[in-house]
């Protein structure tokens, strides 16, 4: 008798028989990861210079690019609202900028449906740079040369950090789709 390859019943997300992903994780992992990224730079790093990249925004972009379709276009508003409560920016800045970013990334995706990671990286680099500059403009602070120069390390760090965030999102995505639930 011919035997079925035992590996064929499993894949990266666990056993394929009698198991299904947990609906809670499928829904919550992306959102919770972004909310945590909002809080992370606030509590764990304090500095005299704003050199921490906008982690929550980059996380949102990474999820959007790695898993298009899990977030509706309007998700930038509620997530931005949460970010505004903590970021120190004037209230509304993340709501506006994140909503615009989600709309823009949809348009770009319709224009260039076939992409590689390098193109994704370039897209996010562009978006993050624009976001950091726009956030500084609407921050209500005085936009002098020293402040603009102080933004540069943050921008460079953000661009360099994106592959790490993309990897992290890929890992979280695997957790999200792991079949924990037993189907009877």
């Amino acid at each position: 008798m011919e035997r079925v390859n035992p590996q064929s019943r499993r894949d990266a997300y666990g056993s394929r028989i009698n198991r299904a992903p947990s609906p809670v994780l499928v829904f919550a992992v992306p959102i919770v990861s972004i909310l945590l990224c909002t809080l992370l730079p606030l509590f764990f790093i304090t500095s005299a210079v704003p050199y921490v990249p906008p982690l929550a925004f980059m996380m949102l972009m990474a999820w959007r690019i790695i898993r298009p379709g899990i977030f509706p276009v309007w998700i930038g508003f509620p997530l931005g609202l949460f970010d505004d409560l903590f970021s120190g920016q004037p209230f509304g800045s993340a709501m506006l900028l994140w909503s615009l970013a989600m709309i823009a990334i949809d348009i770009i995706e319709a224009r260039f449906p076939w992409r590689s990671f390098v193109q994704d990286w370039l897209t996010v680099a562009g978006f993050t740079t624009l976001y950091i500059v726009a956030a500084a403009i609407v921050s209500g602070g005085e936009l002098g040369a020293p402040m603009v120069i102080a933004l540069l390390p943050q921008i460079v760090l953000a661009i360099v950090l994106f592959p790490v965030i993309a990897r992290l999102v890929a890992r979280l995505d695997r957790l999200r789709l792991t079949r924990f639930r037993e189907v009877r």
Partner: protein
Amino acid sequence: MAPNSARRSSSSRRAQYSVFTGYVLATIGAVVGAGLLGLSLISPEAFSGPREIANDVASPAGEVSARARTNGKGLLDSISGYFRAGSQNAQLKKEVELARIRLAEAKATEAENARLKALLGLTEAEVKPVVVTRLIASTSTSARRFGYIGAGRAEGVQVGMPVRSERGVIGRVLEVGSATSRVLLLTDSQSVLPVRLASTKRRASAFAEGRGDGRIQIRLINLGINPLRKGDVLVTSGAGGYYRPGTAVAIVSEVTSDGAIARPISDPAATNFVSVEPIWQPEAISAAATPVDESIAE
């Protein structure tokens, strides 16, 4: 891989409508965000309520992380803190630095005393802080520099009170929640602080303005020969009535034609405990807030 974009829906009318609704909602979100942003730029206090509640809720996490953070100053120092010799060295350096600041402050007090004796023989008692608390968080992503402290209305903190660490001035309370308060840090680009030179020989009064890049611009009030030198310590002058005179603020790192660029003595990253002090001269502030044509006394 080509993404299965929600934009290319299907021939299903329902799917098309939901995509369209998504775009409409996202646009509404952006417009509402822009409106709120405009409002909060015009009056920065507008949305302090929800922010205070959010920070009160999140403050336990800040208390824990503040404890963890104090093991090392900033990212680089915490890495060097792993090596015993390095951490010892850093601690000794800190002690020497503290001693230098104390010395400069003592000199400033000496000068102050001489001036006061010359005037009236007035002496000032040490001010008891309103509350001693932790600096639980600071904005490290935004271009604005705000900190959060773990004390609020319940502890008697009021808007405008100066916040200092054992090293020197940190900033001024901007918003007060029930258990946390938001502090405008010294290095924020909207922060202005009247200072003077902590020296018995040279006199200079100036404004210390945040530059937004972690350093402070010192603008002299009396233009002329610039009396500032590299390494000079600047202390609060007491003008304006918020800060008690003689608290260390910054060290001059670079002399410019109209003043200097200085580094703050109290780095928020290195700060664990801070004390909130009462407003030095509340009468002066209420007098300054009163229109010219009204009388101050009732």
